[in-house]
Structures are given as C-alpha cells and as structure tokens.
C-alpha cells in the first residue's frame, strides 16, 4: 500500500551560513515530525537562512502545505530568510496560488 511505503525524510546540512534542508518523498501529515526535527537542526546550527530543497519530493498535499507554512512562520519569527529550490512546475504553481512564493524566494 502506498501509505506504508511513502517514507519521508528531511536532512539538514550547512552550506556557509545557510541551512539546506533536503526533503525526500511525500510531504503529508506523516512528515510533521521530520519537519520539526529539521527546524531544530537549523536552530542548533545557528544558520542565518534556510534553503528548502524539494528536488526529491514527488508529492505535497494540503497537510504538507500546512507544514511548510508552519516552518515558514517559525523562520520568519526568527528573522531567518527562507528559499525554495527544486520545485516542479506544478508545485511552483501551487506555491504561487497559495502565495507562499510571496514569502520565500523560489529558485
């Protein structure tokens, strides 16, 4: 069944002062814990900005959008600029429709 195999991971690494979060798999409700963990890493590394790498993401649902909104809210509260890379055309469009692209740089 798809839901059993749909693993998600978020790995954080530093590139200069930017925390790069490599997202893999499906961003849905089951990704919540991994998102929290990734943001804790960002704080631990003392990063000055965040780059979300969506290159390995094949599915984002509305709950996933909510997780991204939550992450964005925390980053903005901490005055950390956030950018997104590797989005497919479809999710680029969704980021535009939801206006997420107004609050993060789409690379």
């Amino acid at each position: 069944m798809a839901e059993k195999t749909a693993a998600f991971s978020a790995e954080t690494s530093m590139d200069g002062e930017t925390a790069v979060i490599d997202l893999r798999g499906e961003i849905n409700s089951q990704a919540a814990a991994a998102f929290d963990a990734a943001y804790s890493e960002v704080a631990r590394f003392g990063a000055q900005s965040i780059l979300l790498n969506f290159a390995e993401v094949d599915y984002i649902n509305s709950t996933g959008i909510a997780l991204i909104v939550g992450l964005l809210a925390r980053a903005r509260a901490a005055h950390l600029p956030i950018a997104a890379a590797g989005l497919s055309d479809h999710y680029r469009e969704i980021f535009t429709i939801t206006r997420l692209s107004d609050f993060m740089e789409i690379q």
Partner: protein
Amino acid sequence: MTTLKSLWRNFIGKKQVEPAETAAPSPAPITQIVALDLDIAPHDPLLTYVQHSPGVINTEQIKLDSPAITAMRQADIKLVVPLVSQGELIGLVNLGTRLSEQEYSSDDYKLLSDLATQAAPALRVAQLVKQQQLEAAERERMAQELKIARLIQQTLLPQAVPALEGWSVTAYYQPARAVGGDFYDFLYFPDGRVGFIVADVTDKGVPAAMVMATTRTLLRAAAERLIAPGAVLARTNEVLVQEIPPNMFVTCFYAVLNPASGHLVYANAGHDVPYRYTHDGVVELRATGMPLGLMPDMGYEEKEATLDAGEYVLLYSDGLVEAHSPEREMFGFPRLQHLLADRPDGDSLKDFLLGQLTEFTGAGWEQEDDVTLVTLMRNGHSGQPGADNLVEFEIPSAPGNERLAMQRAAEIVQDMGLSERRLDRLKTAVAEATMNAMEHGNKYQPDKPVRLRVFREETAVRVTISDEGGGPPGPTAAAPDLEAKLAGEQSPRGWGLFLIKNMVDEMHVHQDDHHHTIELVMQLTDQPGE
C-alpha cells in the same frame, strides 16, 4: 333568474302617452314605448299572485303589498297582463291609461286575456329561440377560444424529446377540456448540456396560453446568456413580474442536465417538487423559490444531483397529483412517491404512471386539469458503468489512500489529451477531494469507502468524489489568510478546498442526507490565458 329578469325588462313598461300639447292639430295620438326600469324582486308577492290568478290585473284595484305594483302605479300603469306559458310566468304586458281616457271595459279585459293566452306560447317560443341563439354564439366563442389556446400551446410545445446517448427521455402532455396553462420545453446548449423546463401558468384558456408563450420566450432568452438555473429563473421573474396580468403567476422547475456525467443542476419557482428515483429510494428534488411573476427581486436556490445508471427524474404538473377518483379522493403526492418506489421493472415509466392514473380515476374521468409528465432516465443498471465514458471505483478510507485515487484517476484520463500541467492539477484536486472525503466524510472508517467516478465528456473530464457523510454542508473554500497563518493567528492548515477550487475549471459540492460529493470539471484543452 338573470335571464328572466332581463326578459321582463324588455316586455314591460309599454306606456301610452298623450301627444305634446303644442303639437296641434294631431290626427291621432301616438303610442310611445317607455323602457321602464323595473326589477321585480324574487320575493315580490306579485309573482306568487300571477301564478295563481292568471287574469288581467288592475293596478288600482289589486290589494297587494307589492313594491312592483307600487312602481307600476307611479309609472301610470293601469293594467298588467301576465303572460303565462305552461304554468311559467314569462312576461307581463303593461298598459297605461286608455287613449279615450275612459276606463277599460270588460271587452277590453276579455280581449287582453285572449291576447295573453295566444301571445304567451308564441313569446315563449321566441324567447327560447333567442336564448338558444345566444347560447350557440357563446358556445361558438368558447370553442373558438379553446381552439386558439390549444393552437398556441401546441405550437410552443417541443416537437420531439431530446435524443441523448445513454438516456431515455419521454414527454407526455394531455390538455384538459378547458386547456390549462401547462407547458414543457427542452433547451440545447452548445457543450451538450440540455435544459428541462416544466411549468404551469395559473388560469386557463387564452390568457394562460398568452402568459405561457411569454414565459417560454423569457426563459429561453435568459438561458441563452445564463446557464445557472437559479439565475435563469431570477432573470425571467424580473421581466415577467412587469408583464404579467395581476393575479396570475407561473410555477416552473428548471434543470440543466449534463448527459455525459448525469450531473443535474436545478432550481424551482414554486412548482410541484420533482421526484428522483435512486437505488436507495425515491427522493424529492427540493429547491426553494417563489413562483414567477409574483414579486420582484426573488432569489432561487440552486441544487445539484448526479444520476446513476438506472436512476431517473420525474417532472410533472399538478394535473396528475390533483386528479380525483370517482369517490373524490385525490391522487396526491404520497401515492405518486410510493408508485415510483414500487414500479416494476420493464414498464416504461410514463406508461406505468398513466396506467395507474387511469386505474385511479376510472374510465369516465373528466380530466380536471392539464396532465404533463417529463421523465429522464439514465440507462443501464446499478453498479455497472452506464456508458462507455464512465469509470467508477472505490478507495478504502485510510490515511494516505488519496494517492491511490490520484494514480487511478490519472491512469483513466491518460489518453484524453490533457496537457501535463492540467493533468498534474487534476491529480492534486482528486487527491485533496479524496482526502477530505476520507477524513471529514468517512472519518477514516474502514467500512466506508470513497467512491470516485470519472466521466469522459466531449470537451472535459468530470470526476466526482463521494463520501458517506450526509447532513449539513462542510466548510466553504474561502481563501486562507496566509499572513494570519504566518503570524500564528490562524491554523496553518485549511488549504484543501482552496487548492481544489484553484486546480480545476469548475468545482461543485453536492450534499444530500447520505452523501457528500465533490465534483471536478477539467477542460481537456488549455484555456485562454494559459
């Protein structure tokens, strides 16, 4: 009574008068006939008196407390000669003073009496002939009017029912003798959708036919510019309310069917509520709205339904439900609803209902009002695709299963020519709608699957996603406030319906007591501006 009274007025009041004093020398006095405006009240004792004493009456001598006699005396009437034929008083001959100014003699009395005996039957015959002529003229006028009304109605009713692949449409119209104001109409839209109208104008005959013609024209004009049935009825009402004679109005049910998907959008202006036969029972297609032409600024609720294979809708007029049996029992709505639920397989719905109506009213029934039936049935059987263009499947309600729905829908539509972008958008919309259905409608209960239907249409693909959560409608797709979410003032969630709505060309939400359905329409080709 009125006829008799007016006849009396014609025959009484003949009064002789003297020539004018200045007109000398006059060879002979002239007789002037004065129209005496005298109504004899039905209880005037004079009437009883003449019935029993048929002779000549001297108004000076008769002792009767009769307002009629008093009026006659005041008009100088001396003698009253009742004309009685076969025991029935048919007139009075009234005489004034004799020209010689002498009293009337017994010979005069005899002459008048004989005259009355001879004249009464002749007068009666004349009266009857006159009456028959009037009645014949009236009958002729009514027949002519009836003919005109029928002609108008027949000219305006559609010549044929829509021929729709996968559907059986029938129409039946039987005018009452007096021709009521029923009509039905079919409207054909360029994208393949078909409008169904059943309406009933108050009143009968030519006035009803005229209002019917106007209403039909207004509905057609409104439907050319507007598709939404509620808007069409509102627009028609706005114009009709200024045109229609007082005390007249029109009840009207208007539905637009997409034959490819079975999707029906409807609105009702006070018409008898149509029935929808479903596999779960017979339900009413209710939508609120006032009849057309009563009041300005009316709004019309719009509802939707999707007909499965084997399901049908019956539109009808009150001539059916208000028909009476010989025992004066009314056919009624409950009977109709039960008949639809118990209808044996195989019979045509129309023939079945007409058979039941005849059985109920008996053979000698004089039809009280127009009877109109329009049926639209989706062919095929329950649980099987009704047409080549439908694929139907179920997804168990479990977290993450929206991806199964999405993949399956993508496989079904892969050969329909959607661009990659449109396909991605449809997939997201299907996934989000399925997720909503599993979570909110079915509460992730394993025994409650989500049912998806994918319809291929001429220019679009239509997907319906149904859950088993009936009852009040869910949240609407208001644009989420991202600023508020980022500021922590609003939950970061709440994107589902917003996304769906923005992914597809049309989104409709249907709700009944048992199911909640989201319907998605995606045009197959890119739209202007893309």
